[in-house]
């Protein structure tokens, strides 16, 4: 017998794969997307499909052009496409969505080396690029179940929230208001409106151990405490805008968030503070995207200071004290 395989240990491998992880994220995202389509209609379904397909195509073409192995099989481009579509208004023009996908996949991800190498979240960065490029299209909202032009400029709950805060009022919490947010009966981006399904998707990711609850808890907890201290309707803050989508699906992006426990805490708290400062004191209605992007950029620095000490590590000081005694 001469054909024995000689390899370095270990000789057992877990069955998980990059593709499996991405598939879990897709599964977790689907219910919120279906809710969005039911509320906003067939055009929204088409918009989601075009965004996802163009993201996958962009990755395929980029791989071919730079002569690298084709990586669309890992499904990460599908996740990016879905997340981008979920962050767009329901009647967003298709050609603009395609530009967004190309920016996300080629500029933000591919040019920095592909999966795991990008320093900023592709979907979030593309959303911000679209926001500054096409401000009008990016802020044309629609109320659910009211398709058509007459409803396109209605204010989102976040604007009402900010106005109430600036006037020194706290919005009364009623089951009607809260439930319409939970079930997605208020205006907003395609994927962010159905908070109930986003919560379920987030819990699915935690149960499948795709993500740990650290970043979402730190993020949402900070938003709650911040707005509670300032009297800015904490429960509404949590269930408004893109907070749940951002906290569970985007701030937890592996490539662009810290890997270590305390790093994740800093990431979540940082996102929470920046989100609330933007929501309450700036001219922008929503701060989730900017907060995540800023924390993405800080991630390498956060990791530098939060890398855990090895098992059994003793501080030099303590050791000296021990000897002195």
């Amino acid at each position, binding site marked *: 017998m001469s054909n024995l395989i000689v390899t*370095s240990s270990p000789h*057992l491998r877990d069955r998980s794969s990059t593709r499996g992880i991405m598939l879990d994220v897709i599964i977790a995202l689907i219910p919120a997307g279906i809710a969005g389509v039911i509320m906003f209609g067939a055009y929204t379904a088409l918009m989601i499909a075009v965004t996802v397909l163009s993201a996958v195509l962009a990755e395929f073409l980029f791989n071919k052009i730079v002569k690298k192995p084709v990586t669309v099989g890992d499904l990460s481009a599908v996740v990016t496409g879905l997340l981008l579509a979920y962050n767009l208004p329901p009647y967003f023009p298709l050609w603009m969505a395609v530009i967004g996908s190309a920016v996300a996949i080629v500029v933000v991800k591919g040019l920095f080396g*592909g999966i795991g190498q990008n320093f900023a979240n592709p979907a979030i960065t593309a959303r911000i690029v679209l926001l500054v490029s096409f401000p009008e299209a990016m802020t044309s909202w629609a109320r659910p179940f009211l398709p058509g032009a007459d409803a396109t400029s209605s204010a989102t709950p976040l604007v009402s929230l900010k106005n109430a805060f600036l006037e020194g009022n706290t919005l009364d919490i009623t089951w009607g208001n809260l439930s319409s947010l939970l079930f997605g009966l208020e205006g907003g981006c395609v994927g962010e409106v159905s908070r109930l399904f986003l919560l379920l998707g987030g819990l699915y990711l935690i149960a499948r151990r795709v993500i740990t609850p650290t970043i979402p808890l730190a993020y949402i907890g900070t938003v709650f405490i911040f707005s509670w201290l300032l009297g800015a309707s904490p429960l509404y803050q949590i269930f408004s805008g893109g907070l749940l989508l951002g906290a569970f699906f985007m701030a937890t992006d592996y490539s662009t968030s810290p890997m270590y426990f305390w790093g994740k805490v800093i990431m979540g708290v940082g996102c929470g503070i920046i989100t609330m400062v933007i929501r309450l004191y700036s001219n922008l209605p929503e701060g989730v995207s900017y907060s995540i992007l800023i924390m993405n950029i800080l991630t390498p620095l956060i990791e530098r200071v939060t890398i855990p*000490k090895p*098992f*059994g590590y003793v501080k030099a000081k303590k050791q000296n004290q021990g000897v002195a005694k």
Partner: protein
Amino acid sequence: MPVPERVLMSMQQHVGAPCTPVVSKGDTVLVGQLIGDSDKEVSAPIHSSVSGKVAGIVELTMPGGAKVQAVEIHADGEQRVHPDIKPPVINNKADLVAAVRASGLVGLGGAGFPTHVKFALYNNAEIDTLIINGAECEPYITADYRECMENSWDILNGILVTAEHFGVKRTIVMIENNKPKAIEELKRICASVASEGKGSIKVKSIPAMYPQGAEKVMVEQATGRRIPPGKLPSDVGCVVMNITSTAFVSRYLKDGMPLVSRRMTIDGSGVANPGNLRVPLGTPIQDVIKACGGYTGETKKILMGGPMMGLTVMDENMPVLKQNNAILVLAGDEAEISRESACIRCGRCISVCPMQLSPTAISLAYRAGDAEEIARKNVACCIECGCCSYICPAKRPLTQTMRLAKAAVRKAGVK
């Protein structure tokens, strides 16, 4: 198993300095006869496992690639025992250390650390706890479990001798909770001693979770004490002994037969009748497999040791060593080599590392060729348990990279 026709006694069957053969071609040797020894402190003598004739001193390539001397013996099948084999006379603690050395005992759990070196620590006043490691070191392996079931009284006697030698206040026997029968058996016989007032022996059930058998993990599980990087169990007042090694000490004191055979688990989809066998040291792996009904199907990989830390052998003539607790024969899918892809920074390698390291960060520093950065990330603490490679969804060979990274630090001379 039947006596093999020939054995190949490697002069390196332990951590430390290799032995030099003390027999030469044509000599007749008997079971238990000294055939290799070293004057170095960290080493362990080697004894013949068969009676027969020395066919020669040959060169043997170990699974790690190192070349060592080996004594080849053609067995006569009679297994005549050397006349000098008799129980050692123990008058004091130094006698016991000498006897343990003469027995050729090394850590039988897989590490192969010479036991007498540990026993020489007996004058260390700070040692207060003896930990008996009965956590099977890796998946598949059940050799220590069989020792608990078959030789529990030897284990107990070995514990009593060892505990008295070190003057420890307590002994904790660690058994994984997927072996309730072993726990029950050891509790039963340990209770019989406690009633006679011979010291505190506690049997502790611990979760069956790899790498529970790793020394640092074991000490923390038993006592809550954490061994600092670069330190030994004795630095936190503990001595750790493998459960089969402990039982061997008591048997050696009774009959004086050195370590010439051992129990091992033979398993894996490529072997016909998996099980535990008592194997003479130096037996070629193919003879062991034959005793287990031979191969089934197409064998792809043969491991010495478990699936997580075991070494792949290049040749089925490779002989069994003292520290080999298992032979695994992998066929088909079990031996599949996964294709690696880019790191997605999921952090799973960090969450499974028992030493709280960041394998992915070390890997990054290694690929950047930055030895100082590797050292700063504490690669020296890595115990090479294999968990990071196991869990990696991108199938990156992280454990292998840790080994290369350690070598890079050594080469660059970074402290």
